[in-house]
């Protein structure tokens, strides 16, 4: 084999010299005659085109560069990224919400997402003491406390264990927290964007508790602790720990992102995000709650009489229309597929109703695709906008029969000074000009 043919990707000469000299002459003649005809036809066509201006969309009439040039090769981007045209859809901080960005939050752009799965790069972030990209080979998980035999697991150990994959939503307890008193933010990204939904893969916490011989008869709680600077801690009930809590290393088919706890995080389905401890390093089995900082000082619900409700963890039934939503503009009158998300920390979504007249009349929306327990559920409903002002709302009902309340119903019980667990019906006002505004309606 010569050198040329061993180099991959080479353009090689067509084997014309395999034809006899006579055949080659014939072939050349035939080719000339064909080309001559083609040229004549082409000249005629272009003369006709010059006679009158072509009518139609220039995007059709004039071939674009991408139709007339060579595109990019495979693996040009070893790890793929979205189109540059999608740059507008990013995680964003809410200006003025926090003072330092290492103890802050970035919000998921719900206004531009489809289906129920949140792309990993757009998953919301909440860090208390900054994030790290931890070397997984040095990461350890210790399970101890009221157990027969406290154990240490490496990632190698954990990833050999029987794995499960589950789709669940994660919502920060403070999602929509800025709206308790009044409208404070313009778009669904900032009002509801501390919400994401992924397929998580990991081992059930109950498997680990079984391996260490946890004293499940006397234990009432487990403590989960992170390996980051704040060593985030939260108390989990033993019932949840033995039910659907997972110790997960993967989200949406790849390992967790560093911003979301790489290489290991707790997944506590239905429970507020602060309990999903990232960079998980330790599980302690105990018989009393641990009263951690985020159970005693933060993530407490301030009631009108000044009492703090502690250990309010389950995310109640909730929904929101994501398009059209605040800050968007309807381009024209006519038909729209109004779409949104519904979820409940207590189980499956049973029904979603949508109102276009501020809650006077309601129609039931279509639930799209899989309706999973403690996962986001996508809903769609037809709407023909006649150009007059409208107020759009959605209202979810979960399988336990709990109905998403109005903001005034929530305020009547919990006041206006809480930060957490605002699951009120969201109202979007469509003005005559098609611009959509975040409003509150009783």
């Amino acid at each position, binding site marked *: 084999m010569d050198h040329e043919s061993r180099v991959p990707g080479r353009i090689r000469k067509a084997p014309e010299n395999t034809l006899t000299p006579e055949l080659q002459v014939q072939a050349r003649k035939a080719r000339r005659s064909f080309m001559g005809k083609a040229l004549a036809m082409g000249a005629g066509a272009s003369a006709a085109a010059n006679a009158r201006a072509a009518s139609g969309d220039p995007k059709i009439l004039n071939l674009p560069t991408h139709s007339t040039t060579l595109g990019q090769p495979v693996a040009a981007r070893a790890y793929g990224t979205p189109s540059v045209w999608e740059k*507008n859809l990013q995680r964003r901080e809410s200006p003025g919400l926090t003072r330092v960005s290492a103890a802050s939050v970035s919000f998921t752009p719900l206004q531009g997402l489809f289906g129920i799965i949140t792309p990993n790069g757009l998953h919301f972030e909440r860090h208390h003491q900054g994030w790290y990209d931890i070397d997984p080979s040095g990461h350890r998980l210790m399970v101890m406390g009221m157990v027969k035999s406290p154990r240490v697991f490496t990632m190698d150990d954990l990833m050999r264990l029987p794995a499960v994959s589950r789709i669940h939503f994660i919502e920060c307890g403070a999602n929509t927290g800025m709206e308790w008193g009044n409208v404070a933010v313009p778009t669904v990204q900032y009002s509801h964007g501390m919400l994401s939904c992924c397929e998580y893969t990991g081992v059930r916490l109950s498997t680990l508790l079984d*391996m260490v011989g946890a004293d499940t008869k006397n234990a009432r709680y487990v403590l989960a602790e992170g390996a980051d600077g704040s060593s985030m801690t939260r108390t989990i009930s033993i019932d949840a720990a033995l039910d659907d809590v997972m110790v997960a290393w993967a989200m949406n088919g790849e390992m967790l992102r560093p911003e979301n706890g790489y290489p290991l995080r707790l997944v506590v389905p239905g429970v507020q995000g602060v309990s999903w401890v990232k960079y998980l390093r330790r599980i302690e089995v105990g018989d009393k709650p641990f009263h951690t900082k985020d159970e005693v000082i933060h993530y407490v619900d301030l009631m009108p009489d000044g009492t703090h409700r502690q250990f309010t963890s389950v995310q109640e039934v909730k929904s929101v229309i994501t398009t059209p939503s605040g800050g968007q503009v309807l381009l024209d009158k006519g038909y729209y597929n109004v779409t949104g998300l519904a979820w409940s920390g207590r189980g499956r979504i049973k029904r979603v*109703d949508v109102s276009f007249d501020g809650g006077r009349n309601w129609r039931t929306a279509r639930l799209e695709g899989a309706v999973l327990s403690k996962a986001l559920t996508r809903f769609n409903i037809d709407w023909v906008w006649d150009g007059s002002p409208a107020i759009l709302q959605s209202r979810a009902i979960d399988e336990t029969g709990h109905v998403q309340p109005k903001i005034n119903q929530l305020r009547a019980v919990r006041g206006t000074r809480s930060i957490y667990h605002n699951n009120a019906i969201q109202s979007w006002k469509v003005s005559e000009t098609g611009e959509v505004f975040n409003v509150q309606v009783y």
Partner: protein
Amino acid sequence: MFRCTDRMRHVLAGLLTAAGLAGYASQARAQAQAQAKPAVAAAPKPWAQLGRVATADEIKAWDIDVRADFKGLPAGSGSVEKGQEVWEAKCASCHGIFGESTEVFTPIVGGTTKEDIKTGRVANLARPDYPQRTTMMKVSQVSTLWDYINRAMPWNAPKSLQTDEVYAVLAYILSLAEVVPEDFTLSDKNIAAVQQRMPNRNGKLVYTEMWKVSGKPDVQGSTCMKNCATDMDVRSMLPEHARDSHGNLAEQNRVVGPFRGADTLQAPSANPAVLAKAATTKAASETVQIAKGTAQKPGDQIAKDANCLACHAVDRKLVGPSFKEIAEKYKGDAKAAEMLGAKVRNGGQGVWGAIPMPANPQLGAEDLQSVVKWILEAGR
């Protein structure tokens, strides 16, 4: 003959736990369990050997949590005076000298009174007009403060404080809130008594309805479908001046689809759709220009992206000449860059043989310039 019943063993276990005799307690508990449930030797799981037993030292190194009943609290002590020293050196830059600062985090101290210390309820928490809720107003357990300072502070150097420094810093905070006097020394011996003076120790309610998945929510909506109660009044919306408080929303929405983001740099218009469309198109084309920007994009990346490397290599001939050969040929030629740029852009044939070089009209001017510069530097 005396027989220890199950119930008695449980009670004994509880008493021993309370007395701090955990070892005996767990033994008693284990016995109680053994008695209550005759052990059925379940087959060991096939994965039971994964992981390994934690050593006592490892557990000690990581088991740092301090519970409300002070389980886990290490022995030690620290004075208010010592605490002030540590505070001013390591804490005051974020929290202020008196724990009052709002610069970086919410204030730690303020809003509590002597009366609160008596009642265990912070009265200001019930006042809708009270502007701030400080840590000392909210916290119900002193153990939580000890635990958090120990595990997470100082913010940029967590877990760097000595045990006695944690006691001292906490003593200083408590003295600022007048929970302890200025000459106080906080220790593992007196911290339980301090708990009884925490201003908001009684201001909490463990709300199990939102702790258990089976709990009953406190606020229930309505399932009414027709002519339901609503006042249709817009009670709240963002004021006009806050229109662009979160940036230009045109740049936060997709450039195609049924909607565009509103151009919030302009006042609401009679026809915002047109404005929004123009704004998003402009924003997107700027974005694309930035994405295609060549200032930082290295020459080899452009060569790869533009498919140059299908036919050229840096140091050996493939279909076309190597970049080294090209650089060598045009060394010292001031017009080489311009000439080569035109060849890359428009294609050419003949200089290096019969195989033609295809045109590359998709290359932006800056990319073209960068890649030619890179080639003339022999692909360095």
